[in-house]
């Protein structure tokens, strides 16, 4: 009995191990990870851990006690380097190949490297080590240039401002988080950064980064220059799938898997988290999601399907991400996009809360919610239950009414 081998002590990997046990799996469970670090969670790395407010202990994905009591074995500092699908063997850099009955690929992703070079003082942010290094450069009065106004860049800008670091936020697109925002909603977030003293340079790219720590010069595509003490490059991530190149698995910017999270054309091999590219039968093109909640939900599906191969479950999940920036909790459900119609409720600068509902031909596609938890729940349920946009808008209207009545009492 070889049991289940999980590659990656990511949230997807650790949650798969825990879900296997809570679903009654009695085989051996081994988690293999290239990092020496005890498994840690990543959302805080751009927020409370980066600021120094939360500590290493609070990032643990599982305690040592729980791992021991659930009989989950961890092989840390052990890098997966290949897979022999026919022999059911995982090849690693430290010891003889590891036999498995079921294999879970949860190797996640890594930060896209800086195309302008990465001398000391030019950072990316993905790992605990990255966060420690960036934290050391966030001293009050220092100047940080943030390249890329996606979720990571926007969160680091917020954390750095709270530490009294001067921040210039640069992105070639016209507003932050532009993959998921329309111009109107994107404008909320541009104004949010500006209101907190960030210098924004949207609509211009970076041509080069010269100099060294304490004295960087970023040349921008409009001919201007930004000077900074350090730089964060937050331009997305890439899946860790190269180790599978010779395995015969289908790889295309992620490991291709079906709706049961099984690697395509294989038996006993599952994929969860950022490394998974899900072939979506309903929406057509395949998607690779880089969301914490998706990783956790895929972990659950994978565990169920390992324990109940005769009653395999389809991975069905409403996409959901959150971001904490300044005093805003930003929550995105479903799949908003810049090319959809949108209805907004409230104004984050007036009422301190707002929601934008994204619609295509009457069909509900997604929602962006700021500081409004009740609406967030309604939106997630509405998307899961395939309500029309009108039904959700009516529901939000009625919440707004009931709130205003309460406040008059």
């Amino acid at each position, binding site marked *: 009995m070889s049991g289940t081998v999980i590659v990656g002590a990511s949230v997807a990997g650790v949650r798969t191990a825990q*879900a296997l046990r809570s679903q009654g799996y009695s085989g051996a469970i081994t988690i293999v990870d290239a990092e020496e670090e005890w498994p840690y969670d990543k959302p805080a790395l751009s927020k409370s851990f980066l600021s120094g407010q939360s500590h290493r202990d609070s990032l643990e994905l599982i305690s040592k006690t729980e791992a021991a009591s659930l009989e989950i074995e961890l092989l840390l500092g052990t890098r997966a380097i290949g897979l022999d699908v026919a022999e059911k063997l995982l090849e690693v850099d430290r010891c003889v190949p590891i036999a498995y009955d079921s294999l879970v690929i949860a190797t996640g992703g890594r930060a896209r490297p800086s195309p302008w070079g990465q001398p000391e003082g030019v950072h990316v942010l993905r790992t605990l080590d990255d966060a420690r290094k960036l934290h050391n450069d966030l001293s009050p009065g220092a100047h940080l240039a943030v390249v890329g106004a996606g979720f990571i860049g926007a969160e680091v800008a917020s954390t750095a401002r709270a530490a009294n670091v001067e921040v210039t936020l640069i992105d070639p697109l016209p507003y932050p988080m532009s993959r998921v925002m329309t111009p109107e909603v994107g404008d909320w977030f541009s104004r949010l950064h500006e209101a907190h003293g960030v210098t924004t340079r949207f609509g211009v790219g970076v041509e080069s980064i010269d100099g060294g720590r304490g004295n960087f010069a970023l040349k921008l595509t409009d001919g201007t220059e930004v000077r900074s003490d350090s730089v964060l490059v937050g331009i997305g991530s890439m899946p860790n799938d190269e180790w599978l190149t010779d395995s015969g698995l289908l790889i295309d910017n992620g490991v291709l898997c079906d709706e049961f999270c099984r690697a395509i054309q294989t038996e006993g091999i599952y994929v969860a988290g950022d490394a998974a590219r899900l072939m979506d039968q309903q929406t057509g093109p395949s998607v690779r999601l880089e969301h914490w909640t998706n990783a*956790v939900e895929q972990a659950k599906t994978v565990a169920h399907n390992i324990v109940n191969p005769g009653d395999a479950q389809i991975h069905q999940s409403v996409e959901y991400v959150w971001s904490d920036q300044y005093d805003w*909790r930003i929550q995105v459900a479903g799949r908003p996009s810049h090319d959809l119609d949108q209805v907004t409720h409230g104004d984050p600068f007036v009422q301190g809360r707002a929601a934008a509902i994204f619609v295509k031909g009457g069909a509900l596609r997604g929602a962006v919610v700021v500081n409004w938890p009740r609406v967030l729940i309604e939106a997630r349920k509405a998307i899961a239950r395939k309500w029309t946009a009108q039904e959700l808008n009516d529901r939000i209207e009625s919440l707004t009414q009931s709130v205003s009545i309460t406040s008059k009492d």
Partner: protein
Amino acid sequence: MAKQAKADYEACQGYANCVMGAEDYFDLDDDGKVVLLASEVPESDEPRVAEAARSCPVSALWLEDS
């Protein structure tokens, strides 16, 4: 034996993953704090509620032996 659902209300940030995982056990109030709709979790519901608790991004929920 039935278990008890427990919440750390200070830690809760209103992410709502628990509600999506088990809306018969968890809800959020208007301030976005978790509300336990039932604290006793019978064995038959345990895997589902345990997974909903583990889907909390800030580990504000857990099950305890009662």
